[in-house]
């Protein structure tokens, strides 16, 4: 019985953790390109879910069409956010930028509340609702979707950053912005790219998790913070390390809630965050001088 339980905790933790990981990767990509933490990242997660709902119900599109539309719309939102809020800043010191992202997140949340109201909405699952049994533990088809999409995105990310010109250019910006500029990389364009990519990742995370967790205008806050934890554990890497950080966080949370006490579920995440920041600020897997890509 105990084995069943632990397996169930781990499986539940893996799927929530994958979401944390995806959101975390969004944080890292922007951090690497610009050196700021984009606290509006959680709001793109919310937009993913809410926009899918908009295209699905209000505009009556089928699910397969609503999803790309929602991702595209979130990317436009990310692009506008960078253009209107980040780029016009005269003195882009990190602290100013961070405060702007917090302001942006409050604005986006407020607009979403006005547009869609304060109610929680449910999204239909991608493929059925019948539980699948694995050695006594059960998961839903949607959990498999989440894991598959996460693996797929990690693979695409890897390919983009190591095998395409623009990916390599973005890595160059992460190493040294000025040098990247000197060799002819348009740093500002890379910053814009980073916002577009991470808003796409955020919205994907938001829309694949929405059928399980439902969505409302304020889901972004907590998911954003957990994603941030994942990115910190992964040492702000935009690849596999952050996803592993997310998975670790998800499993620990789930085990903690099941075996210790459910009241401490969120506390566990933030204790891990503090421990990592104090003991290993370079992340769990990073070397002292971490390679942040």
């Amino acid at each position, binding site marked *: 019985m105990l084995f069943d*339980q632990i397996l169930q905790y781990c499986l*539940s933790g893996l799927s929530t953790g994958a979401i944390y990981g995806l959101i975390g990767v969004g944080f890292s990509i922007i951090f690497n390109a610009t050196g700021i933490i984009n606290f509006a990242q959680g709001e793109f997660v919310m937009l993913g879910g809410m926009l899918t709902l908009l295209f699905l119900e209000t505009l009556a599109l089928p699910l397969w069409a609503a999803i790309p539309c929602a991702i595209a719309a979130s990317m436009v939102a990310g692009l506008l956010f960078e253009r209107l809020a980040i780029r016009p800043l005269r003195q882009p010191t990190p602290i100013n930028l961070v405060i702007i992202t917090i302001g942006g997140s409050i604005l986006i949340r407020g607009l979403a509340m006005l547009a869609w109201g304060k109610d*929680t909405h449910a999204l239909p699952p991608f493929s059925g609702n019948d539980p699948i049994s694995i050695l006594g533990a059960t*998961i839903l088809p949607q959990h498999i979707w989440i894991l598959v999409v996460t693996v797929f995105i990690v693979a695409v990310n890897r390919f983009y950053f190591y095998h395409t010109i623009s990916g390599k250019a973005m890595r160059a910006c992460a190493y040294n912005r000025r040098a990247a500029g000197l060799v002819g990389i348009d740093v500002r364009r890379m910053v814009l790219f980073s916002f577009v990519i991470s808003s796409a990742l955020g919205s994907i995370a938001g829309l694949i998790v929405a059928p399980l967790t439902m969505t*409302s205008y304020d889901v972004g806050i907590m998911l954003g913070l957990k994603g941030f934890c994942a990115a910190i554990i992964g040492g702000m890497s935009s690849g596999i390390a952050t996803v592993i950080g997310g998975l670790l966080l998800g499993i620990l949370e789930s085990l903690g*809630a*099941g075996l210790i*006490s*459910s*009241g401490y579920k969120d506390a566990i995440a933030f204790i891990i965050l503090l421990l990592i920041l104090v003991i290993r600020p370079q992340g769990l897997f990073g070397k002292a001088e971490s390679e942040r890509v």
Partner: protein
Amino acid sequence: MRIRFVTFMTMVVSLCITTASFAAAPIKIGALFAITGPAAFLGEPERNTAKMVVDEINKAGGVKGHLLELVAYDTSGDATKAVQLATRLIKDDKVVAIIGPSTTGETMAVIPVVEKDHIPLISCSAGSKITDPVKHWVFKTAQNDTLAVGKIYEYLQRHKQSKVAILTVSDGFGASGREQLKAQAGKYGISIVSDDTYGPKDTDMTAQLTKIRGSQAQAIICWGTNPGPALIAKNARQLGIRIPLFMSHGVSSKKFIELAGEAAEGIRLPSGKVLVADMLSKSDAQKKSLMAFVKDYNNHYRAEGDHFGGHAWDAVMLIKTAVEQGATSAASIRDQLEKTRNFHGIGGTFNYSAQDHAGLGKDAFVLVEVKNKDWVIVK
């Protein structure tokens, strides 16, 4: 400019005097509702209902020649703001009675103000500590948690199920429910074999439910407001949990069925009668009030009246009944309220007395079950 202002004021004043000369002075009722903020799901229907009822009463010529005037403020669920607005209602608007606030926390904060200024308050929130111990000027219309818990335990006792697992949300509503669930268990011969909580913003409760699945529980009682319980229903289905799942009256609205979808089938919960108004037998004393409320609310707002709106309906109607008995001042309204007997409202049948300012009995709740995406009464 100045002269024009003076002329305007003279006109306003003379208008007031002439109006007053052929109608009795209007009776001012204050209202504090959490129309925005996290408790908006309470405050919005309450404000809508209070406004609707007052309009209807005035359209029918008022109460004994007095028109009612509703002064409603939005507290956004904030206790500090509620206290400021209560003072404003009493000092500036000179109301004779206050309806609300929507949440227990706000009500507790407002109580000292109304006790000091001697203004009757009819709270729309559920916490049992509002009227226990009895405060001279404070009444309430929302059903106590105690009654809801009793309703579930009674059912379990009848079906010889004695081991339950409880899963409560970690906010004021859940904490109060948890307290009551634990306090009353002994009385019904029930033992709590698993006691878990979840956060109001949590997105996955499979960990807690897995733990419950591994325990000896014969039933699960979950205490929370949307969306948590809908997630728990889905998670329980995912885990293949077959023992009966009970919810609190916090989710007794169609929204819950909509969110939980198929997973809602078979879930039982105690609910105010408004949810099943059309299914009640004709002999039910509340049926007339319930049907009137549901019909009016639908006509005005094209939405289903829920029991939150019902709390405000009861509060306004209780004041109206008091005024009908000749009360027009704060003190006389309070005295009349305390004399209320067999008032068949939305929340239940009210019988206030000097010892009881909550006024409801266990018959205020019925146990309902979700069947084919709708509610049915559990016999």
